């Protein structure tokens, strides 16, 4: 017995282990409430930064998930917003056209622009109404803003519209304030030229030019544009007059075709 204890005392590592076991047994024998209190106190000190890191990582994961969801919702709302903006514009256009329809005396056929021909000298629009709606060649085509052009070819369901910005298009026009007559034609660029305006005319910049009704195609009083340049040319009997068209030809989406007789 004495020999065993003597050998045991010589094995320092075993003594260490037994010491550790003794401390552990004391800890094991503690009541659970005491263990919990000690655990909470020591964990609060040792584990605090790690628990914070753990919470941070959890938050990061949750934030990432919520970010993905919010981005998806944002994209969805952006699409809805774009759709709403488009509908708002369409609504405004249609309201203007409706107002124009009510106040005009001609019979109007509404039409959607379905294609555009962008040849530089002869631009044209294709509209989605044709002979089946009573459209014929040389029917005036207008919007609420003013004259767009006239039909030059008609099929059963579509029609080709020659724009004012076509070299071959001519309209008899009149200055609303001075009642000066002239011929509107396009000579390139963004403006129209009003020819055959005598130098004696009092036509001035800012005057409104409308169709005169002469020529037999366009009814009188349809808006063409506003004078932006009017000067006498030296040695000529006529003025140089440039008109800014009221219609933005490149952004027309809906038009009316004027049919003769209500």
């Amino acid at each position: 017995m004495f020999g065993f204890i003597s050998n045991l005392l010589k094995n320092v590592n075993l003594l260490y282990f037994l010491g550790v076991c003794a401390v552990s047994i004391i800890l094991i024998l503690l009541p659970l409430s005491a263990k919990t209190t000690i655990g909470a106190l020591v964990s609060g000190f040792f584990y605090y930064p790690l628990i914070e890191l753990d919470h941070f990582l959890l938050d990061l994961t949750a934030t990432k998930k919520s970010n993905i969801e919010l981005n998806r919702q944002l994209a969805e709302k952006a699409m809805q917003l774009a759709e709403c903006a488009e509908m708002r514009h369409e609504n405004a256009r249609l309201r203007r056209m409706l107002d124009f329809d009510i106040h005009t005396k001609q019979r109007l056929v509404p039409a959607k622009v379905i294609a555009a021909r962008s040849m530089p000298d002869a631009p044209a629009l294709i509209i989605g109404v044709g002979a089946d709606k009573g459209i014929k060649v040389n029917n005036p085509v207008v919007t609420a803003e003013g004259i767009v052009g006239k039909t030059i070819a008609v099929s059963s369901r579509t029609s080709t519209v020659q724009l004012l910005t076509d070299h071959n298009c001519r309209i008899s026009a009149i200055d609303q304030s001075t009642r000066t007559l002239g011929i509107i034609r396009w000579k390139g660029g963004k403006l129209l030229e009003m020819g055959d305006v005598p130098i004696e005319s009092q036509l001035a910049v800012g005057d409104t030019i409308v169709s005169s009704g002469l020529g037999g195609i366009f009814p009188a009083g349809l808006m063409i544009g506003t004078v932006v340049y009017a000067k006498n040319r030296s040695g000529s009997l006529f003025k140089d007059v440039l008109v800014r068209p009221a219609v933005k030809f490149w952004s027309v989406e809906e038009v009316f075709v004027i049919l003769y007789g209500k």
Partner: protein
Amino acid sequence: MANRFINIQIVSGIIVALAFNIVVMPRTVILGAVADMPLVVTIWIALTSTPRTAIIFGFLMGLLVGFARPAELGWSSVLLALVAYGIAALKDRLVMESMWLRIAGLFAAALIYRLLYFALARYGLLETNSAFVMITTLLSAVYTTVLGIIVFGFIKHRRMIRDLFQ
């Protein structure tokens, strides 16, 4: 100088094991199996230092693990100290220089540790209701061994790895 190195090793081992236990372990559960980083670090210390250091380290590590799970306070420290002592004592007799022997030792230790843990739970000594599932125990031992291979490999080749990033 050697003592100072061992102290640094012990402190960094404790920090890494605790960080892994709190932050990584709950997120890396595979089929119910969990890797036991405190056990891996304890075995590494047991393999590289004296039995006395291993016992103290195992005890301290067990104590810290126990503080996080108060029901196991005391048991975890005695189990880890026992594993550390066993490995440290066997190391010199079996000459565990080969990496494969060390890994085998790690697997055996992980398995024995898990089995002891569940034996204690089964006899109601842990004051916790841990259901014993053999397959999960085996998987946990394998998972711990894989983690040990990574950690041991990293420690063995740390200079080479450090040079790669310089």
